[in-house]
């Protein structure tokens, strides 16, 4: 039994060892994990070619479902960034208030969360750390504060790609677990804000802005997620926090305080937000205007898969694969928003010449590594599920943890994200395992999956890849804030190399001090919700 469990765990253990022990990227370790899964499935679990082929074919649909969002989310971010939109917002925010605590709440919490909502890929820390450094925060604080500040918005961030991955990997429909996920992440939002305030030693009088901004972000994210438009829930929450923070910063400024230096023209701020405003309008139109919804729902790609069984008798019944409604997909909506934004910004005269080529090349380069990691890890977990390995792992976990499993679930999510540097990868890796374990224990699958993704969100900001990206951006912060240039973009894709600076160890230790109690709290919340009969 133990040998069988260890063999089932081998692909995941191999991933952990290769990434943490040997410093491999997720794009290299993912394929190695797939190979291990395929070999174990074939040699020990009796999965023949038909089982592996069906698993691979199903993985294609799951991976494409996530990749469409990842690719197009990065595209929209690059369109806005190329026109100087991110730099404009980054320049405007510090001028709102001279209070360092309020600056930290606005930049390291609300703005970083907004950036996570629209971009991800390490962008929140890469953009905000140099701004904080420029405002006089020390380098460790400049990385730790935004790392903690945006953690809560990772799941519904990157235009919902992590949540889409959870839906695909677990097979549980999004609406079933959106309220639970939003509840855990909403609580984490307030805690993340308090942590930011603690990191920068903000004044106690900022507790009111903290609560108001936190409630606005958590409530907006929850409303959008439960309303079924989860790909805009993360950035909607961040935007709500920015709006409330803007009003509070203006209204609480004392007359004796300086109003700030040169003002960023309102037209530029409006243009910087155009892409995201268009995204909201298009998303709501596609969701709620029935003729448009019906018209865009005409192209559906779906396949039917035959029944397959392993030599050990594990049978996967014939079933339709995941359906992709191509023209109504979140990825397609992002492409519509990107194209419209590009033309509007070009007509407004803020898009540089030959920007389209740069945007296309940079987007392609920016998503390559994560795309390989996503497709290989998706295929790995699909092979494991079809071979019966996930079931063996789940039964072992259920037996070992028993009633304490709700406390363990967020840590599993965090481990996956810590190792891979991605909430999306963690959900792909562990979504089905968490679901099966919950089913074996006969507890709410929705709450356990919410704990998985909330833990994954927190764990992702602890990953060595993201920490070194943040440290690198803080080190090279002598240029104008908010601009992503060559080396930073490479860094945001996890390609940073070179000697690790001393501060990286201090950053990880500091992040761990805050993240461990948060993960513990998420586990307790999950356990309490289950004890209270939460479904």
């Amino acid at each position: 039994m133990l040998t069988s469990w260890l063999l089932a765990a081998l692909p995941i253990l191999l991933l952990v060892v290769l990434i943490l022990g040997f410093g491999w990227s997720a794009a290299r370790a993912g394929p190695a994990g797939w190979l291990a899964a395929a070999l174990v499935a074939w040699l020990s679990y009796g999965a023949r070619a038909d089982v592996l082929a069906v698993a691979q074919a199903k993985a294609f649909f799951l991976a494409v479902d996530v990749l469409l969002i990842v690719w197009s989310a990065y595209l929209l971010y690059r369109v806005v960034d190329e026109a100087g939109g991110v730099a404009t917002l980054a320049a405007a925010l510090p001028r709102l208030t001279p209070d360092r605590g309020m600056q930290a709440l606005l930049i390291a919490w609300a703005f970083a969360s907004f950036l996570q909502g629209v971009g991800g890929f390490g962008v929140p820390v890469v953009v905000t750390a140099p701004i904080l450094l420029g405002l006089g925060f020390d380098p460790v604080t400049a990385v730790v504060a935004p790392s903690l500040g945006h953690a809560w918005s990772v799941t519904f961030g990157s235009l919902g790609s992590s949540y889409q991955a959870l839906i695909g990997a677990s097979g549980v429909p999004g609406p079933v677990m959106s309220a639970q996920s939003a509840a855990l992440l909403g609580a984490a939002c307030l805690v993340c804000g308090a942590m930011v305030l603690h990191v920068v030693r903000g004044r106690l009088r900022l507790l009111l802005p903290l609560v108001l901004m936190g409630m606005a972000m958590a409530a907006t994210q929850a409303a959008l997620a439960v309303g079924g438009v989860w790909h805009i829930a993360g950035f909607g929450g961040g935007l709500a926090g920015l709006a409330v923070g803007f009003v509070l910063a203006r209204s609480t400024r004392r007359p004796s305080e300086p109003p700030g230096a040169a003002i960023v023209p309102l037209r530029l701020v409006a243009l910087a937000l155009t892409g995201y405003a268009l995204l909201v309008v298009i998303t709501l139109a596609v969701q709620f205007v029935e003729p448009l919804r019906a018209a865009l729902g005409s192209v559906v790609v779906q396949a039917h898969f035959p029944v397959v069984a392993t030599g050990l008798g594990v049978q996967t019944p014939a079933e339709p694969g995941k359906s992709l409604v191509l023209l109504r997909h979140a990825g397609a909506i992002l492409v519509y928003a990107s194209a419209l934004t590009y033309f509007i910004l070009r007509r407004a005269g803020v898009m540089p010449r030959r920007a389209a080529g740069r945007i296309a090349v940079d987007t392609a380069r920016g998503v390559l590594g994560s795309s390989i990691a996503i497709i290989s890890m998706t295929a790995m977990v699909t092979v494991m599920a079809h071979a019966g390995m996930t079931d063996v792992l789940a039964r072992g976990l259920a037996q070992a943890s028993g009633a304490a499993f709700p406390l363990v679930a967020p840590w599993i999510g965090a481990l996956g994200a810590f190792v891979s540097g991605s909430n999306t990868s963690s959900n792909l890796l562990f979504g089905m395992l968490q679901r099966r374990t919950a089913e074996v224990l006969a507890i709410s699958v929705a709450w356990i999956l919410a704990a998985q993704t909330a833990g994954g969100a927190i764990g992702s900001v602890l990953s060595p890849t993201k920490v070194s990206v943040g440290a690198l951006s803080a080190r090279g912060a002598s240029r104008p804030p908010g601009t992503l240039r060559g080396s930073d973009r490479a860094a945001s894709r996890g390609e940073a190399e070179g000697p690790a600076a001393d501060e990286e160890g201090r950053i990880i230790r500091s992040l761990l001090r805050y993240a461990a109690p948060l993960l513990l709290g998420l586990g307790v919340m999950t356990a309490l919700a289950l004890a209270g009969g939460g479904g």
Partner: protein
Amino acid sequence: MNGAPGARSRQRLQAGALVILLTASALEIWAVGGGLGTLRDGLLVTIALTMIIAAARG
């Protein structure tokens, strides 16, 4: 960093691997649906070889 020859070569390799993995997996749908055993096995071997190269050189 993007301009370094090592990084460019890695990006080309990753791009090639991604195209092969996506194409082979998509064709696998057709192979398993149509009961084409030889094609199915050939595609699996292609995917395995691509994964080996991506792990070793990616």
